[in-house]
Structure formats: C-alpha cells, structure tokens
C-alpha cells in the first residue's frame, strides 16, 4: 500500500539514513507515531499493573509491617499459615456460599426478568429503565439503605411482616441469617443489570428458529428449553463468569452492612485481606491472600469456559 507522506512530521526528522534505533524510528514514521501514542498508557501499565503484580508476589514471601526498613524473607510461610488460619478458611467458605447464592439467584431471576422485558407491551421502556436503576447506584448507598430496611424494629421488611402478623427475624445481627441478607441485597442490585445483558442476548436470537419450532408443534416450554436456552449459552457463560468474579471480590457491601459480623459470620476474602493489610499491617500475609484470590478467580474462569465453552461452539 502507498504510504502517504506526512511533511509536517518528516521535515524536522532529517535524513532517513541514520543507523540504529533512531534511524529505524525515522524510517518507520507510522510505527514511531504508534509507539509514541501508546507510551503514556504503557508507562501507566508498567507502573500501576506490572510493578504491583511483581512486587505483590515478592511481598507474599516476606513479612513486612511497613514500619521496619525492609521486608523479611519468610519463604512459603505466609501460604502455609493461610492453610491453618481458621478465619481465612471460614472467609473462603463464606465467600463461596455468597458467590453460589448470588449467582444462582441472578441467573434465574435475570433470565425471567429478561423474558418479561422482551415482551412488546405498553410502557416496557419505562420498566427497562427502572430495572437498571440499582446498577448505577453506589454499593455504599445501597448497603446503608438496606441496613435500615433490615432493621429488626423499624425497618421496611419487618414492619411489613408485622402488618401481616409475622414477627420478623433479626436479620443482620443473626449469625445464621446475615449472609442471606447480604445475598438478598446483592441480588436486588444485580438482577436488573444482568437482565439487560440477557435481554440483548435474547434479541440476538433469530426468530426463524421459533417459527420452525412452532410449525413442528413445539409448545412454549419446549421452545424455551430447546431453542432459547441453548442459543443463550454464550450470554449465560458471560453472566455466570462476571457474576462469579464480582461476587468473589465482594467488599463494600460487607464493610458497610456488617463489618464481617456478627461473630465473623459474614467475613469474606477481600474483607479479610483488607483487615490484614490495613488494620494489622501484615502486608506480606495480605499479598499472599491476594494471590490466592487471583488463583481462585483464574481457575474458576477457566473451568467455566471449559464447562460452557464446549457446548457454545458459535
């Protein structure tokens, strides 16, 4: 292809015969401009992603409280200590329960909501607008409002229950219910968002499939199961992966609503990591937790790709 000249740049470059890197840069004006243009972002990634990823790994083999002049090498001790750390294991289990609960809720409720939002009804646009609203609202605000909604005495839920003659539970101060209350809150926030994604997936399915099924005499349930679900697999994969990644990193909701309590019953991995790093200043230990989290998310994502990916084949 003919490369149009750029006199404005070329004029101040001098001869194109200079050897070495400089010469290469002068001869390849397009590549030169490309790398110059990329330089700020690449520098950023080196400083704020590359360096932290490496340094975090380095720190995970050290003990450091940020006061002593330099980190002390402890080998694998942080990682082996994690295996014996009961509160860590408990946080890991609770994070898994939270993730499974919220992802289950979200897949079922979002898909159902998307099927409703797909209908051609009056004011359907208004409903779509309303359902997405929680996704643009901050988790901190949502956490505070739901904290108040779950108030055993004056909260919306228990007041409503009382109106129909039921005495509501103590929700967030009940060890057996606190995690469930967090799942309810997170589901309230996420269903509309994932429904919007499912809706886009639904609208991408060619209607011809349904016409064919209809002619073959398939019922409503039959076409949902044999057409909608299989053709929605790529969307389903996306929704499940994003939901799992987001839920495994849940933090603000726990910080605001329960602070990990009561009695550690809502402590989750990122909350535990935050406490280790910024309450107890165990930087090496916290970095080890970060890497364990990284590993778990990585493996879960791969597994889901394998599990769903095989059947996707689009």
């Amino acid at each position, binding site marked *: 292809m003919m490369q149009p000249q750029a006199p404005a740049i070329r004029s101040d470059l001098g001869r194109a015969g200079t050897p070495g890197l400089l010469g290469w840069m002068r001869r390849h004006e397009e590549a030169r401009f490309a790398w110059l243009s990329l330089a700020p972002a690449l520098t950023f990634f080196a400083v704020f992603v590359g360096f932290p990823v490496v340094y975090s790994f380095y720190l995970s083999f050290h003990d450091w409280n940020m006061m002593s002049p330099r980190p002390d090498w402890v080998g694998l001790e942080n990682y082996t200590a994690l295996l014996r750390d009961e509160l860590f294991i408990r946080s890991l289990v609770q994070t898994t329960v939270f993730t499974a609960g919220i992802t289950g809720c979200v897949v079922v409720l979002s898909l159902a909501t998307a099927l409703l939002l797909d209908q051609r009804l009056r004011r359907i646009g208004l409903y779509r607008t309303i*359902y997405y609203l929680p996704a643009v609202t901050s988790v901190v605000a949502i956490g505070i409002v739901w904290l108040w909604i779950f108030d055993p005495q004056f909260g919306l839920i228990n007041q409503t229950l009382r109106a129909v003659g039921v005495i509501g539970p103590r929700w967030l101060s009940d060890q057996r219910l606190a995690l469930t209350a967090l799942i309810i809150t997170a589901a309230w926030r996420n269903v509309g968002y994932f429904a919007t994604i499912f809706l886009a997936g639904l609208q991408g399915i060619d209607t011809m499939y349904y016409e064919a099924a209809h002619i073959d005499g398939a019922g409503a349930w039959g076409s949902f199961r044999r057409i909608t679900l299989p053709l929605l697999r790529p969307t389903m994969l996306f929704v499940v992966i994003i939901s799992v990644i987001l839920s495994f990193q849940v933090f603000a909701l726990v910080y605001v609503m329960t602070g990990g309590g009561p009695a550690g019953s809502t402590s989750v991995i990122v909350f535990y990591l935050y406490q280790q790093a910024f309450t107890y200043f165990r930087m090496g230990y916290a970095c080890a937790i970060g890497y364990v989290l990284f590993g778990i998310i990585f493996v879960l994502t791969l597994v889901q790709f394998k599990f769903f990916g095989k059947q996707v084949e689009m």
Partner: protein
Amino acid sequence: MRASGTDPRRATLRRRLSGAALHGLLLIGAVITLAPYAWMVSSSFKPNVEIFSAALELIPAHPILSNYVTAVTREPTVRAIGNSLIMAGGETLAVVVTSILTAYPFARLRFRGRDTVFLMVLGTMMIPSQVTMIPTFILMRWLGWIDTYQGLIIPRIVTPLGIFLMRQFLLTLPRELEEAARIDGCGRLRTLLQVLVPHLGPAVATLAIFTFTASWNEFFWPLIVVQSSEMRTIQLLIAAIKQAEAVDWGVVMAIVTLSVFPTVVIYLMLQRYFVKGIAMTGLKG
C-alpha cells in the same frame, strides 16, 4: 421482522401468560426495585419521631427539611461532594484522553507487535485490583501522594475497558475520513485531533458517563488512600457516619439521597448511552 407484535420468540411466553399477568409481574418487579429508593427518600424527610415509629408510613405525616439542613451544615457533606466531583471529573477527563490516544494506534496503525500488545492490555482486566492495591498503596506513600487528589486520581487514569471501547468505535469509522486529510499533508496527530475526534462523540459520551458513574460510586481505593476527614469522598463520608455510635437515620438518609441523586439524574437523562455501553462492551460502569 422483529418489529411485528406477534413474533414467535415473544409468543412463547405470550401463549402461557395473558397481557395482564405479564404487566402484573413487571409491576411487582418495579415495586421491589423502587421500594428501597422510596424508603430512602421518605426517611430523609421524616422527623425522628416518625422514623422510630411502629407505623409503616411511606409518605411522612409531617415532612421536614431539617435532615437536609443538618446534612449540609453539621456534616462535611458539601466538601465530600466536592471531593467526589474532583475525583470523578479528573478521572473521566483523563480516561477519555488516554483511551483515544491509546486506541488510535490499535485501530488504525500498522506496527510490529500491535496485536500482542493489545491482548496484553485486555489481559490486565483479568487481574483483580486486590492484587495490585497494596504495592500501589506503598508507591503512593513513597511519592507522598497519600491523602491527595493525585493519589485518588492518577492510579486510575488508564482503563483497558476505555481503550477497548474506543478501539471498537474507531473501527466502525470509514478510513476515507483520514486518508483524505493525510493526502492533504496533515500530520498524524492533527489528523487524529481534527478529523477523527469530532466523529467520536457517541463513544466519548458513553465512556465519560460510565467512568464518571463508576468513579463517583468507587469505595475501595478512596478508603485506602484517604486518611483525613477533609479528603473524604461522599461514599467514604456515608460509610464513616454509619460507623459512629449514634446513627441519626434521618440525616444519613438525607446524605445518601444527595449522593445517589447525581448518578440517577445522569442515568435518566443519558440512558441511551448506558444501553450503548452495555451493547458495546457487555460491562458495567
């Protein structure tokens, strides 16, 4: 084809449920979605007597404004909203600029290693922020940026999502746009700024709205980098008030209402850009 009211995809659900039933279900969902907002706004106008009352009343019997007055006078709400505006505004401006500058070579120029570098940029999305957070905090301390605006903003001024979104949009623009300018002897930077940027309106709007909303709502990074009460963002202020022993729910709800207001207004006014953003990237702000 899809515009017809009786298309077979929709008909599968239609055959099971009547229009009234569908409307009923949608209405229930809408009530569940809106109830917390209603409860929030309603509580913010209630005097304490009504907040701590056994009766379930959505409309306050004696609505008052004093919670809002207290919110902006006794609590440092105005300062916190200002801090959030500076953080979200600065971040948005920077992300738009860096995304355009970085996306342009990926979308339009030919150079060795382009696709590898682009994949690496996207790959950084896989890394959870918890892994990079501690070294970044140590770096901020070393630079003396703890408790400063640059500490809040600089570690967030480039996002792989922004680069990706901008690249996808650039790919949809016809090449003839720049080729004409290049033949006229226009330099690459000038071509980008004067010829391409004017066509980037919708992509810039989408990216700006997503970035602003995400930054306004951000909690984790400010929590780590902010230490004084003067530098608190609005999200940090809300979380801090809640930690205080005696929670004055009316005042807290007034502050929360104020904090939610900007993002909801932006969303309602510019909704089409949110929908476009989801369609283009499948990710939320």
